[in-house]
């Protein structure tokens, strides 16, 4: 296997876990090289190198080398200050990381996803409504993974989507025209479907609908293993 060397790639840490006595095993996403597994030797403990740097959500430049599927981190430099994420928005950022980990595999270049992720973090830090960047990222993730919303034609006859018509959106199939609301499906008008597919959400109703629709699609493609972040967030809500 050929030895590889990557210099100062723009990257984010998606997940870090302790490895051996003083090291960390990092799961990162780089702009050019996509997701990679890196060992950061000596990154824990009192005299750790890069201790303040190797944190999630911080724009970094990372250098690594090695062969096989797990590389060795050689250098880490700050690319920009951390996005000022706090409270609920910080937790949402963890959700983004888990989605990326679940929808990508190591070694697959995903420059577009990297760009969407960067935009989503910036959005979480700045946007008035944090739901908007979250929905846009979910949408982009589905599209980039080949599961994008089809808002042009219905799945029954291939007829153009009618803004007035109501549709039940089914994973793998698409928009099925329906006359009344079903029990479990998300039912929405053609106009709402087109707005969601375009990533433009006007008002709380659109956002709620988009959340339900995108969740249904994400869940379908995630299979039976539920998202850890979602379970943890549910536990964190105050009991009502």
């Amino acid at each position, binding site marked *: 296997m050929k030895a590889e060397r990557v210099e100062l790639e723009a990257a984010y840490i998606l*997940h870090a*876990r302790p490895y051996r*006595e003083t090291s960390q095993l990092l799961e990162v996403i780089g702009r050019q090289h996509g997701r990679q597994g890196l060992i950061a030797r000596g990154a824990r403990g009192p005299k750790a190198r890069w*201790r*303040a*740097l190797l*944190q*999630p*959500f*911080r724009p970094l430049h990372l250098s690594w080398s090695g062969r096989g599927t797990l590389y060795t981190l050689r250098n880490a430099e*700050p690319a920009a*200050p*951390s996005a000022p994420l*706090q*409270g609920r928005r*910080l*937790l949402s950022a*963890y*959700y983004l*990381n*888990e989605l990326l*980990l679940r929808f990508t595999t190591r070694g697959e270049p995903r420059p577009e996803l990297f760009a969407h992720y960067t935009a989503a973090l910036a959005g979480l830090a700045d946007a008035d409504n944090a739901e908007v960047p979250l929905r846009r990222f979910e949408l982009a993730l589905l599209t980039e993974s080949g599961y994008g919303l089809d808002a042009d034609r219905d799945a029954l006859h291939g007829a153009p989507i009618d803004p007035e018509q109501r549709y039940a959106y089914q994973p793998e199939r698409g928009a099925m025209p329906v006359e009344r609301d079903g029990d479990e499906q998300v039912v929405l008008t053609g106009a709402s479907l087109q707005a969601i597919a375009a990533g433009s959400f006007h008002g709380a109703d659109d956002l709620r609908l988009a959340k339900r629709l995108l969740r249904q699609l994400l869940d379908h493609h995630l299979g039976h293993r539920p998202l*850890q*972040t979602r*379970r*943890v*967030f549910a*536990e*964190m809500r*105050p009991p009502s």
Partner: protein
Amino acid sequence: MSFSPSLQELLDALRCLPGVGPKSAQRMALHLLEKDREGAARLVTALATAAERVGLCTRCRMLTEQELCPVCAATRRDDTLLCVVESPADLVAVEESGGYRGRYFVLLGRLSPLDGIGPAELGVDLLREQLGAGHVKELVLATSATVEGEATAAYLGSLATEFGVAASRIAHGVPMGGELEYVDSSTLFRAIESRTAVESV
């Protein structure tokens, strides 16, 4: 080199200790068996006793063999202050700093959503009970200065608000004896952000 089965088992067992690899395990085992049988016997008793008796304090989750740990059992401490730390080692560190006279709560971890570590794993139910009991006036969040530590603090801060308890976060800044030139940029950023007024001479 192949050792006799009992010795090999000892070498393997010692490696469960942090920082102990094959070489140090061998040094320890040979030392105990060669030069210090008495020490070995003492170690056996101490380890067996501790492993059997030491559990968690029912109030703060610190390691203890009584129902309450020494800090919780102490009468002359400030009941209105509750300091949340991630581990028993952190509790010891805060205690040794000498600047704190309140009570503690040990999470035995920190929020790590991607690993599925949430409120249930951190004993938050027990913490809720204590906040609900009404004597705590301030929750001091002494979780680590990492993103996970921050997330933990943010969550516990909102929990405190729910109970009408004030929450504070320990300061981050330039370490004692630290020259600014060598302090990393994010620490320095925090230090500038949370600067304090200087008392005039």
